[in-house]
């Protein structure tokens, strides 16, 4: 029997074109689908969608070889807004779905998108293991420190004294989850922070993340207009950290632990072994069946 994968696999055009020759044939708008986003006007997620399509265009990624995978939440709606292959799955499981897809189809460029609730609460375990597995994919977490889609509950990144949710009227009383620190501890090989309101800088980060071989986390501060209107102030508060990015984990840890959560840029980048099954045919089914013969 032939390997079913060969029915689908294409040569990795994306990576050959990317190597120094960004294609100019596709513009950012070519990567956008005709579906109108359901987001509230002014939602930070618009900025992320725009930056992502610009990054695709910059890299000249063939539209059919990029797959966007997401869970559930306002931010997780992104796959439908991109003209290409996508999978809008269930809450918290996007990284797992993407790992299976990448293992089966290493030729594809994978982008996983979602929110802070999706990624760090319900999907927390998958997040840890995606970091340590270090498969080649880019994970964009649109962090608005709130559950937008279910109308304003605290997320793992919400401040402990934020008391505007009916579920936690006295605040969560629980320290915040620190995505960059946890990603570093879990073994991620690329960690960056961007801001939906700084489009050019965000495009640059996403390009670097897409080019990074291995698991690349990009935490994007993406204000929720509706449930966290105070996040408008991020525009003034964000600041860019000095380059180059640390490649040494203890240096990165110092930078990450010392920052105020609003520092933008690459916080850590290091080459590390990338997990990918070999996918090489060495036997036929008949050879395997012969093992049963007495």
């Amino acid at each position: 029997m032939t390997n079913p994968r060969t029915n689908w696999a294409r040569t990795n055009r994306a990576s050959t074109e990317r190597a120094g020759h960004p294609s100019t044939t596709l513009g950012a708008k070519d990567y956008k689908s005709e579906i109108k986003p359901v987001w509230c006007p002014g939602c930070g997620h618009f900025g992320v969608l725009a930056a992502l399509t610009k990054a695709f265009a910059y890299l000249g990624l063939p539209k059919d070889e990029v797959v966007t995978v997401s869970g559930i939440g306002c931010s997780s709606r992104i796959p439908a807004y991109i003209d290409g292959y996508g999978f809008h799955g269930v809450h918290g499981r996007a990284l797992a779905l993407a790992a299976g897809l990448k293992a089966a189809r290493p030729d594809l460029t994978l982008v996983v998108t979602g929110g802070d609730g999706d990624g760090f609460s319900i999907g927390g375990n998958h997040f840890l293991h995606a970091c340590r597995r270090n498969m080649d994919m880019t994970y964009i977490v649109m962090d608005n420190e709130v559950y937008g889609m279910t109308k304003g509950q605290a997320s793992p990144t919400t401040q402990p004294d934020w008391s505007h949710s009916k579920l936690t009227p006295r605040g969560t009383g629980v320290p915040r989850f620190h995505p960059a620190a946890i990603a570093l501890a879990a073994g991620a090989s690329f960690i960056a922070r961007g801001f939906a309101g700084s489009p050019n800088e965000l495009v640059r980060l996403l390009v670097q993340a897409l080019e990074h071989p291995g698991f690349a986390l990009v935490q994007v501060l993406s204000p929720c207009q509706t449930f966290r209107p105070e996040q408008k102030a991020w525009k003034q508060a964000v600041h860019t950290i000095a380059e180059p990015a640390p490649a040494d984990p203890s240096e990165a840890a110092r930078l990450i632990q010392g920052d105020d959560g609003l520092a933008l840029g690459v916080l850590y980048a290091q080459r590390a072994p990338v997990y990918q099954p070999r996918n090489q045919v060495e036997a036929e089914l008949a050879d395997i069946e012969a093992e049963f013969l007495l």
Partner: protein
Amino acid sequence: MSDCYQSCAITGSGGSGAVTAGMLVLEAAARAGNHGLMTRSAGPQIRGGESAAMLRFGPAPVTCMGDSFSILAALDWGNFARFAGEIPLTAETLILADPGAGKLPPELEAYRAQTRWINLRELADALPGGRFNMVAVGAIAACAALPLKAVLDAAAAILNTKGPEVTETAHGCIRLGYQQLPTDGRSRSALPEVPRRWSLSGNEAAGLGALRGGVRFVAAYPITPATEVLEWLAPRLARLGGALLQAEDELASINMIIGSSFGGVPSMTATSGPGLSLMMEGIGLAVASETPIVVVNVMRGGPSTGIPTKSEQADLNIALHGLHGDAPHLVLAALDIADCVLTLHWATRLAEHLQTAAIVLSDQLLGQSRSIVDPPEMPDLPNLPLGRRCAEAVPGSDYRRYQLTEDGISPISAPGLSGLSYTADGLEHNESGTPSSMAADHGAQLAKRRDKLTHFDVGSLWAEITGEMTGAGDLCLLTWGSSHGAVLEAAARLRASGRPTRVIGVRLIAPLQREALRAATAGASVWVVELNQDGQLFHYLRSEAALPEGARSFSRSGPLPLRPAEILDAIAAESADD
């Protein structure tokens, strides 16, 4: 028919080598021309608990363990009491025991007269590195009238990776054990010309069936008794160019295989009850997004963590009804060890063709038992084109992934193909895949996902039907999963006593082939036989109005497997009441 079989239980404390001894005797029996079956039983402990191998072999295929054992070989008496229920003995049972391992336990006092004492330990100590379980193998083989050469050949084959000294010592021990019993010159008899049969466990068979069906990606989280499906598959998938990914949990594994299948590679996971519970949301995603996947559930005693090392058929309800919303999917059950090959093969092809989720039920008894069988042939699977119905790009028109077609199957695509991109979605969607909460889209997509299953003609593989019916009132025993074996033997005894009996082993449980089932049971006196507390298949069939008037249920909880005699007793008791 049961008279032609030999049966033997080998018990000891965990780590004493009871299971290895069992494997050796089984393979020796095969080399002497027998069919055979060996089931394993272990306690919850990893080591130091109890462990047993139960064997039955003879000239005809062996479908179940029978009602009692003719030989009990005890390597020691550690925790023997825990087996009392699993190893029924009779006045004819011969007990082989080592005086060095202590007195007969109180449960066996009544059998003192049939006990044959053999110094297993002392004999093994005569050889450097000698092991007493190998002495026991020799003694059992002599008792069971197996030629010595068959045992020596089996030992050489099984121990070949351990080096020539190990095999040589084992051969010495086996010879010593064999000499302890009279052998009527058997030891010198040449081995008969034997057809080359297969030795396989249900878990290996499930893995093989999946490979035959085209599965090349597996993601899973270990759980007893499904783990061996994965252990068997991992190196073999790698050789076939596929892969097995050990997931962080079952939530990950189910979503991983949805991702790989979306990528175009037929995909599977294997788990057991607690894992299946965790996978339910993901299975629903496969149904809604029409991504083909196969989930093998090797059942164990439940609920919750239940009895991990022993069997029950109590996950049917969750397999049928565990998904939220209206989520039609396939539920199949393998009927015996070799049938795990066919059922998984067929399930994979059905799931791929119908673009849905298939849950395949196996159980500990099938999964961890080993059988000597004729090589399962590649079946001619009826009504089933190979693989997925793939879409072709039509210039100038948009690809509609969830297009409403006559048979409900919408041509599928995969990343990389140009002009055929789409977003798979678990949210309700329209034909293009765009999320939609409109009643019309919901109704149309729900109906499509149901009708593609119910309108598909599955042919005759939905059940194994054995036995003719001669007229009204004949017996029909309806069953599923591993209970099929005991039911077949019960039916054979009923027929031998002059009562025409049909057996229906249901392989495709959902969608239920109601008309075919009604036709096969028409006019019969029907019993539904299964291993769970309240008769899960029986109640399902009743709710589907698929059973004739007066159909009865015989079911009891596990973990002890059903035995033919208790099925017969239940039927006899009921007839007496009539």
